[in-house]
């Protein structure tokens, strides 16, 4: 018996006892009943009340066997360790920069966390941090620590982490970032290939692009298109056709789009 058949049988067994009231990839709103009976398990974005499973967030339903969860469609970014993000310097202290990271919380970039990869022999000197990063600079950085109060520490001591010079910055929905990146970066690579852009995508929903003025608007439009249409199947093909039409280039990309999370 193949795996698919097994899956089908499993579904039948479940249906005989309990009732599933939504389809996969449906949009659900808080308080909506997703399933009745005890054969399903609630996961992220859902909760159990008596014999029912209800949604507690706006999101898209995804079934993983018996487990029902939702992928959020709106909401603020919540800092997570090891996320690579883009932050804007809002304040300079004696030993650290404060970054706005498009979240409910700000992040701290200590001067100890700057240097290394940038080729500095020593850390930026205390009291003269503005020589390295100034207020308003955008910095590509990585979260090293988030505590229980969501106080966030970031670092630029890693490969590719740096200050972003030139280019332009877009703010997108945080929860669409996995779709903008695509499977193993397929979507980003496609846009890069089509428009010859430099592009950095932060997990916090800040996207930095730098490219030829000729193709800049195409890249922006493509990103907005992904953001708006990510819950409709066939996204990769649509974006590919859009980019081909706009730039006149032939793109060679594999077609796999059925995974909704991308990452």
């Amino acid at each position: 018996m193949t795996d698919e058949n097994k899956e089908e049988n499993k579904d039948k067994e479940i249906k005989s006892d309990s009732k599933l009231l939504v389809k996969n990839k449906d949009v659900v709103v808080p308080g909506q009943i997703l399933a009745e009976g005890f054969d399903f398990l609630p996961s992220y974005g859902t909760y159990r009340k008596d014999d029912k499973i209800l949604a507690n967030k706006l999101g898209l339903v995804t079934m993983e066997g018996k487990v029902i969860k939702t992928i959020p469609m709106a909401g603020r970014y919540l800092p997570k360790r090891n996320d690579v993000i883009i932050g804007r310097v809002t304040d300079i202290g004696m030993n650290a920069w404060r970054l706005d990271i498009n979240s409910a919380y700000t992040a701290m970039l200590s001067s100890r966390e700057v240097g290394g990869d940038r080729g500095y022999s020593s850390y930026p000197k205390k009291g003269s941090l503005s020589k390295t990063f100034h207020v308003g600079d955008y910095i590509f950085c990585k979260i090293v620590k988030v505590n229980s109060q969501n106080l966030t520490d970031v670092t630029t001591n890693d490969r590719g982490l740096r200050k972003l010079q030139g280019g332009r910055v877009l703010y997108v929905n945080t929860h669409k970032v996995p779709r903008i990146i695509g499977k193993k970066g397929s979507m980003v690579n496609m846009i890069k290939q089509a428009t010859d852009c430099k592009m950095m995508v932060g997990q916090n929903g800040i996207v930095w692009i730098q490219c030829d003025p000729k193709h800049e608007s195409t890249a922006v439009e493509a990103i907005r298109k992904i953001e708006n249409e990510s819950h409709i199947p066939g996204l990769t093909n649509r974006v590919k056709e859009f980019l081909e039409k706009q730039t006149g280039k032939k793109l060679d990309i594999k077609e796999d789009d059925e995974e909704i999370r991308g990452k």
Partner: protein
Amino acid sequence: MVYKKRLDGRKMNETREIEAKAGVIKKADGSAYFKIGKTWAYAAVYGPRELYPRFLQNSNKGIIRFSYIMMPFSGMGERVRPGPNRRSKEISMVSQKALNSVVDLVDFPNTVVDVVVELPQTDAGSRCAGICAASIALADAGVPMKDMVAAVAAGVVDNTVCLDLSYEEEQYPDYAKEKLDSEHVADIPVACIPSTGEITLLQMDGIMNKDQLIDAINLAKEKCKEIVEIQRNAIHEKYKYKINKKSMDWKKELGE
């Protein structure tokens, strides 16, 4: 005289016409309008975001700040003076408490979710419209909440229990041109969580007896279950619209 037929021809358990839409304010994280008859409420939700001054922060969970604002030109008679007044402060407080029990902000300690409700025109039942709009906007903003809150007013006009009083009905003694006591009209706004039937807001204006009170609350509770469907539909509609419109645009672009 007994109140048998309502002034605007509605049934006793019928609300005014309801219209709701999500995502109407571009710059807000979540937004909605909720129109019930001539009462319009626009709600915008901002956050979760940092809360200052720091002494207001709660390190266990985020808090909600609600502000109810009647626009200067919104009233039936004279201009409403802008800015907070005794009435709007009270309504903001009770509305905040009505929403507090559904919203779950344990993931966002030290933050605030700002809910701003503005009413460009009011007839009656404005706090109920405000709560309905606010709960659509909160859901639209992706705030975790166990259910949406629906609210509607029920009341007694001349010993008859009826739902969702209009301004004329609240002023019934004047309309009847008879010398009736003001006690002949009573009004109770009810907000409830439809999935559990719990009541999160209950106020009363006027006097009614016990049976009438029970009738009125039951009437309102039942209607809340219908109103919450309208609220949910408003959000579903937002995403449906996007699918149709955008995908059609895309087809047009390709000349299909």
